[in-house]
């Protein structure tokens, strides 16, 4: 075993690294732009040089790169302090859906500007009444000539306020069982009747929105898949979700825990000398290293041409609760001053407090801990689904809370 690239991978890494060295923006003018503007400038620069959406076919703006090449690119790109990726959902989840289900005309129209960052997309799936049970969604679309008229409400929509387009799954037939009455469209987020309201999270930030649809008209040509086939189309989007959301847990890692435990004292000695503290740190390291080397094993499989499978669900399932447990415990070590969030006064500039407040969101977004455990149990271990009381029952006859 070794951690080395194959000769081809090494050549590719070298090419990527040298392009990044010459082109990654660092100038003050760039830094003065808003985060979204920075992201768009950087994405366009990558697109023009063939480094955007590399796995996509050339006619859609990619270069037909392999999965391992995409990973190598991400590793190299992550060494630079670059703007947040505002295109993750569009490029990671919606692009593959358009490729699988859209007309050739729409693919040619929408995929290149999605790859270049000139157009941003969002995903309109979750609803107040349909989260983990997504197919229980109630937003409806009714046929009117060549158009459909959409009414209802979506929620938890990341980036709706700066998106140009969105994909939406709606109920087109409430008289059939829930999975069979859905259809899938793309919508213009600037269309009349679309209203976007930011949600203030418990962190005080607003990363998500509520999106209200009031008599929003979309053309039947904006439908992906057949009428009633919306669930299958949605699965294409969702299959790409775990890959797009990934397992980034910021700076809450064991090296931060070690550093806090070295600085904080218990009975006049560094906390790092305390057996109970050491046991906790060791357990987190077991999780952290376990995920890292699971990643290396997946990369090896990718490098040999395999596809990523449901086993990758463990990244978030382990990482998010770990982030919560670690940040909670490190605040305990800080004692009463663990409550201080003021960046100028708090230990580690408030990273720990922010992580603690953000962790509940990570345990929910993109599939709750419980749903991730179900995925492992059902798709990896082959256990049966829970019986469903709404199975085979027309949607409009299913009891609701």
């Amino acid at each position: 075993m070794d951690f080395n690239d194959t000769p081809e991978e090494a050549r590719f890494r070298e090419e990527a690294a040298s392009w990044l060295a010459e082109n990654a923006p660092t100038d003050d003018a760039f830094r003065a732009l808003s985060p979204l503007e920075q992201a768009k400038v950087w994405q366009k620069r990558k697109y023009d040089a063939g480094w955007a959406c590399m796995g996509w076919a050339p006619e859609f703006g990619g270069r037909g790169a392999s999965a391992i090449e995409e990973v190598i690119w991400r590793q190299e790109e992550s060494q630079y302090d670059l703007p947040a990726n505002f295109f993750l959902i569009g490029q990671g989840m919606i692009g593959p859906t358009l490729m699988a289900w859209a007309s050739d005309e729409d693919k040619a129209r929408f995929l290149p500007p999605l790859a270049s960052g000139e157009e941003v997309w969002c995903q309109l799936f979750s609803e107040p009444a349909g989260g983990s049970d997504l197919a229980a969604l109630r937003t409806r679309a009714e046929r009117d000539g060549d158009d459909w008229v959409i009414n209802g409400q979506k929620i938890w929509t990341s980036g709706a306020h700066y998106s140009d387009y969105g994909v939406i799954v709606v109920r087109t037939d409430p008289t059939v069982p829930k999975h069979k009455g859905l259809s899938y469209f793309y919508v213009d987020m600037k269309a009349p009747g679309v209203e976007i309201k930011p949600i203030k999270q418990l962190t005080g930030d607003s990363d998500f929105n509520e999106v209200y649809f009031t008599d929003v008209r979309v053309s039947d040509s904006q439908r992906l898949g057949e009428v009633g086939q919306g669930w299958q189309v949605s699965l294409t989007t969702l299959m790409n979700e775990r890959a797009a959301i990934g397992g980034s847990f910021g700076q809450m890692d064991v090296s931060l825990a070690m550093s806090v435990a070295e600085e904080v004292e218990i009975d006049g000695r560094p906390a790092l000398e305390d057996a109970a503290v050491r046991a906790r740190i060791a357990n987190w390291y077991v999780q952290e290293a376990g995920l890292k080397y699971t990643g290396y094993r997946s990369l090896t499989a990718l490098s040999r041409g395999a596809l990523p499978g449901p086993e990758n669900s463990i990244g978030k399932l382990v990482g998010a609760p770990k982030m919560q447990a670690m940040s909670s415990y490190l605040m305990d070590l800080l004692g009463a001053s663990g409550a201080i969030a003021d960046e100028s006064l708090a230990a580690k500039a408030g990273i720990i407090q922010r992580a603690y407040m953000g962790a509940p969101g990570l345990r929910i977004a993109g599939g709750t801990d419980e749903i991730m455990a179900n995925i492992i149990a059902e798709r990896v271990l082959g256990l049966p689904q829970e019986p469903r009381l709404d199975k085979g029952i027309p949607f409009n006859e299913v009891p609701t809370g």
Partner: protein
Amino acid sequence: MNFEFSDEQQLLREQARGFLTEHCPTSAVRAVLDGDQDWDAALWQKVAEMGWTATVIPEAYGGLGLSYYELAIIAEEMGRSAAPLPFSSSVYLASEAIQRFGTEAQKSAWLPRLAGGECVATVAMAERAGRLALDRLETRRSGSQISGTKVPVADASIAEVAVVLARSEAGLEACLVPLQQAGVSVEPVLTFDTSRGHSAVTFDSAEAEVLGGTTINPEDWESLLDGAAVLLAWEQLGLAETALTQARDYALQRFAFGRAIGSYQAIKHKLANMYVKNTLARSNAYYGVWALAEGSDELPLAAATARVAAIQASTYAAEENIQTHGGMGFTWEFDCHFYLRRAKLLSLAIGSEAVWQDRLVSALAAQSAAA
């Protein structure tokens, strides 16, 4: 990135699994657990014929001169079948100690016989309850004689020789002590896993030979334990995988309230937790065997990480496998308890969880200080 076993090594895994499925069914484990024997001697002969006892012993001493990758694979399969064999004592510990610390003459005398499985060797470390303290051992070597008591010593009743950790005026030593001699008494000690024999071994001016003819650094002994920790981690991973497979199979076939219990989220989540712990343990075991096989200076960290992960995964899987089986899991008749016994037994050998958590953090601190 090439973080995977080679095709030849995968082939060895299939071969080992097939062999143990045939020659070490659970009835073989049960026979030792129920009977008066401390091991399955016939199985040991077959395992030796397969060359497994010779895996990493150099060819010059009658071994196969293969790598720790091959030995890790065999260790996992040994665990998967809960083989009632002194494999960890003889192969991961005693053979390694002789190879690492022995003189040319000592290696020539013992390694070929250990490689061929003609004899079993063990290591005697613990003297009393609590954490092993290398600087406070009471077993003493003076001249060519050794005195003291070691308890418990795994597999001593079937071993021809023990590597006995002792002190002399010069310091810490590992002594080769043949067990069939007048100055040695080996008394059985009942443990909760009678599929592996344990003894109290008393040395009363027994003839002893110092390995390498000189003292050993405590760090070198700990490094030997690092290697054993990696191999034990693989063996425990095998136990954990069997426990998960049993729990999964039972959850599919056992019905309650009109449906398979595996359809209840309480059971699914339990099994998903087992899978997660097993996956983390497997990936950390890869890290461990990589460090061991490549002679990396990350071995102390990798070994401790692999060991802690494997202790946690194997005891959790064994405990929750029984829980998944309900009352039947608590019976002698069902096999679930084999894995509980062995997982916990191996968790207590060579330092338990807290010892290795402590070593893990020490290794992390050393690595960050060096960086």
